């Protein structure tokens, strides 16, 4: 590989961050599929993926806890980069430009854009809601400590949070397909300088002013 080509990648996600992300993704897919099995009769067949109804009921809360657990290190590391700033609100006001790929009209974006930031906080809020409500409706261990009214409320909260989370993740998945290069960034860790320049220019400036982008040999 020539020197030039080697320089042509910028590291966006370290191997640790990638591992972390895909562990959360694994937890989400398993929790969502097992949860949807209990959400609507039309999806009860999904319980077959987990070894039947009782196994789905047994596994789902543990899978949920796993997802939350692996989300914590990611949340800790990206929390700061996801704080909303003035430019983010401007970015959101220009949502038509965003969805129509007219990025040149948008304010410069840092490590994460406003959509990613809102998604992050939506996920964090939903996971917190799912944890608290999930403990209440976890019949095997915790429901006995709560009144029937609290259990009923928690059942609704759990369903609503799960619904919002699933919709948010569907958007997240599509965004990764839509913005070409994002999936590679999360799979192999790198983006091209052009990618960083186009989608996260403020971040691009930040890293290139501090140093040259790290070269990678893969």
């Amino acid at each position: 590989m020539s020197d030039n080509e080697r320089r042509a990648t910028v590291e966006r996600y370290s191997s640790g961050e990638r591992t972390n992300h895909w562990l959360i993704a694994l937890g989400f897919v398993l929790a969502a599929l097992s949860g949807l099995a209990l959400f609507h009769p039309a999806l009860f067949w999904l319980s077959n993926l987990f070894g039947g109804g009782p196994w789905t009921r047994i596994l789902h809360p543990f899978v949920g806890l796993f997802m939350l657990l692996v989300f914590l290190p990611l949340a800790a590391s990206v929390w700061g980069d996801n704080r909303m700033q003035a430019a983010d609100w401007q970015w959101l006001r220009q949502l038509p430009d965003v969805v129509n790929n007219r990025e040149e009209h948008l304010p410069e974006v840092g490590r994460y854009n406003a959509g990613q930031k809102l998604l992050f906080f939506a996920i964090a809020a939903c996971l917190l809601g799912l944890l608290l409500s999930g403990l209440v409706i976890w019949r095997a261990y915790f429901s006995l400590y709560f009144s029937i009214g609290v259990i009923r409320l928690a059942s609704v909260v759990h369903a609503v949070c799960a619904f919002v989370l699933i919709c948010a993740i569907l958007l997240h998945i599509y965004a990764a397909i839509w913005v070409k290069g994002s999936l590679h960034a999360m799979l192999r860790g790198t983006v091209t300088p052009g990618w960083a320049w186009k989608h996260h220019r403020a971040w691009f400036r930040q890293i290139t002013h501090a140093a040259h982008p790290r070269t990678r040999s893969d």
Partner: protein
Amino acid sequence: MALQSLDIVRRSATTTAPPGVREAYTGTVAKLIDTTKCIGCKACQVACMEWNDLRDEIGTNAGVYDNPGDLSGESWTLMRFTEYENPKGDLEWLIRKDGCMHCADPGCLKACPAPGAIVQYSNGIVDFHEENCIGCGYCITGCPFDIPRISKRDNKAYKCTLCSDRVAVGLEPACIKACPTGALVFGTKEDMQQHAAERVEDLKSRGFDQAGLYDPAGVGGTHVMYVLHHADQPQLYAGLAPDPHISSLVGLWKGAGKPIALAAMAFTALAGFFHFVRVGRNQIDEPDEAAARQALDAAPQRNAAQRPGAQPPDKRP
């Protein structure tokens, strides 16, 4: 549990019609519990244990006559005793046989996520089919009477079956057969209402002005009904719900919100697909790479250590 039936009017977590060609042409059934005739002998509890081969753990005496202390996976009915001091200052010993009310609009069935774990027969009996039960406890969440219990032995939900197996072959429930005072009677719901009306009239003539039948409309009526001396205050009878109905939270959780949410999730996924079709991917073109290269070349090649506040080169900001 019962034999395979062709007389199922409702089936849990099922969106198509259950097998139900057999209708209850002779009317639905009902158990009438006359609290004014009950002496609290618990013969009904024993009959229930015997017929259903249930033996609950022997508990501890909590200082009251309730024995066992609560319903469980192995105790599907029990007497609840209340010492009530009436306004005249007299003690009334109110005894209520507790157990499944077999609601016409069953909250357990509405909440159940497992197809066929809860069914409602055309005769009105609400029955659990434990081989389909997944043990989630949603039936407990849905029940307005706090009746179903998850067995600690097998993690399945259990409750009174109204002896659906006996009724299916023309017998009366075991508890009815055992009652020595006639406090428990069984028949068509219409007959039971008629019988109750006679009892209420008799009670009123004996000074119980508020005597009445408990057949709460909030759950569409029940197939287990009570004759109460104080029908205006059902809560006197160990907290019997004065106006039971499926909680609005359960309605929200299990009602129209579900298909709408499912559709919204499908719509979200479809929105992505059609965005792809109409707008397409956001790609990097050669000019972007060129601009980035230009910016890189123009960037000051300073050592991080010389720039206060800058991150070391091997640490990504």
